[in-house]
């Protein structure tokens, strides 16, 4: 991997690190920008802790969803699970019309307030694009390629691991990328149901008319989202999705 390809990632990572170092020391700046506010710097939790909590939520939910979603996509494209393929595809398509916030709000009655509900909501929603893209990717592998593999005596497992998954990988990765980006946003809204995330200063700022808190949370979460997006761009051909 060339340095040139890494440049956007390094840039966003440096920006995030810089913000994490400078924001806690920027009380004077925010005092000047928002003279009417008594406490213009969010101090309830450190920005580093909020960022790490946010990353944990997104990574945990997207990682689990990738594991389960790709497995489900593989299962329904095998002989044993083919009966489920139409149902799962249709459900993934219909489910994606549900707003992510709605899914978040619906987990609260079941799991109560807190990070747990948010984690489960992120996981459930992230499954949909991953399943949809895994199925699309695996079904998109040319029939002749599969027949050639069979003719060369590949076992079904070897064919899956060495032919089908590598060929479907870009589409699957695009699905995981979509999920991860949606999750960064939904984890932010998760603060309304009591999850600790970069949304905490935003929500608190919105309810307490403290625009400075909103700006601090928004800048950090926007940078984090762009960093994660650039990381995925490394895995694909480098162009934005």
């Amino acid at each position, binding site marked *: 991997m060339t340095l040139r390809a890494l440049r956007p990632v390094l840039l966003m990572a440096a920006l995030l690190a810089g913000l994490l170092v400078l924001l806690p020391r920027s009380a004077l700046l925010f005092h000047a920008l928002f003279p009417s506010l008594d406490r213009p710097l969010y101090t309830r939790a450190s920005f580093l802790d909020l960022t790490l909590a946010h990353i944990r939520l997104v990574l945990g939910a997207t990682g689990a969803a990738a594991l389960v979603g790709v497995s489900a996509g593989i299962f329904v494209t095998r002989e044993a699970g083919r009966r489920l393929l139409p*149902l799962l595809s249709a459900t993934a398509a219909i489910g994606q019309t549900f707003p992510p916030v709605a899914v978040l*709000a619906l987990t609260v*009655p079941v799991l109560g307030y807190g990070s747990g509900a948010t984690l489960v909501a992120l996981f459930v929603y992230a499954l949909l694009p991953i399943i949809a893209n895994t199925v699309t990717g695996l079904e998109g592998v040319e029939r002749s390629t599969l027949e050639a593999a069979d003719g060369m005596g590949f076992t079904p497992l070897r064919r899956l691991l060495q032919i089908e998954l590598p060929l479907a990988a870009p589409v699957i990765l695009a699905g995981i990328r979509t999920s991860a980006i949606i999750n960064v946003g939904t984890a932010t809204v998760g603060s309304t149901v009591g999850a600790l995330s970069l949304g905490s200063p935003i929500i608190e700022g919105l309810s307490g008319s403290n625009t400075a808190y909103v700006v601090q949370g928004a800048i950090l979460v926007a940078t984090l989202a762009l960093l994660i997006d650039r990381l995925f761009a490394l895995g694909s051909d480098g162009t934005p999705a």
Partner: protein
Amino acid sequence: MLRVRNWVLPVLTGIAMLAVWSLGFLSHAPNRIVPGQPLPLWAVASPAQAVALAILAVGLLATAFLQSGRKTGLVTGSALFATLLLILAAAATGSVALANPDVPAARTSLGPAFWLILAALALAFVDLAQQAGLSTRARLLLAVVVFAPVVGMAMLGWFDALSLAREYRARSDVFAAALQRHVFLVAATALIAASLGVPLGIWATRHPRFRARLFAVLNIVQTVPSIALFGLMIGPLSSLAEAFPWLRTLGIAGIGTAPALIALVCYALLPLVRNTVTGLDAVPAATIDAALGSGMRPGQILLQVSLPLAFPVILAGLRVVIIQTIGLAVVAALIGAGGFGAFVFQGLGQNALDLVLLGVIPTILLALACDTAFSVLAANGEPQR
């Protein structure tokens, strides 16, 4: 000989039965705030309802051995439909029986078992439609048939004893205003985004450098979480309104409709521009040449040849925009834009989960309705076979 031919429906039935066995069908609480007592299905359903549901469950399990076909599909569909009606009736009569005029604050809510049965039924209907290979129009008919009794029962006041209906009745005029607001936000976003996005897309197909820059910017916007974009609008817009007070008379302020609309339009541009560019790129060069050869001017070609050919793709972009905006408009309630999101966040704040549902259910129904409408549009646009 008995052979399992279809295991999907029996598995779904099994899950629903397990939910009935282990979870509350209704939940009863002395007031709106405290968590309710779970009540199992057999405790709230009348004996006749319980027996009928048990027979239906056994019947649905038995469909495992039926040969798939038109007849089986019809029988299964009817059984599912009957189950839906019975479940709704059990919730209605159960909540009425629990209502006590001496305790007006008492609340009866739908429990997890109810929702899981409903989810299993929805999956079963989807599977049925998929297996039967129904056309878009037949699917629409099925959806109407399934939804009609729900709406009918609600109109007749069957569910009035449920907490969800009481939350609605407590604010029926606010609900109408929220619906109007939500639809306005979505429609205005789609309209503004289309009138900006399509020209931008046309311009981008002619200017490669502009195209690259435009997509870079729009991709960044699409990546930034909605709530952050909403939040970042507050500062600049409120200082603008402070510097130029006449702007405030136009409704421009840090919170409210203006920042919400601006952010929603920013999100909507990427799908529209992308699909416009994709659609125009896909117009065959030979078609353009033929149009040029027949003496059409470039402007004419664009309006009469390229855009009509690209229209289905642009329409698909509009579909994405509308579904996406319905969801994002919920979040916009956090900056005072109103809509169904107001109920969601109010309910989350007050721990009143039926109020949350009052915001979530119509949002989901709105998204599903718009998605269905676009499916029908797209199906009608396809050449008849």
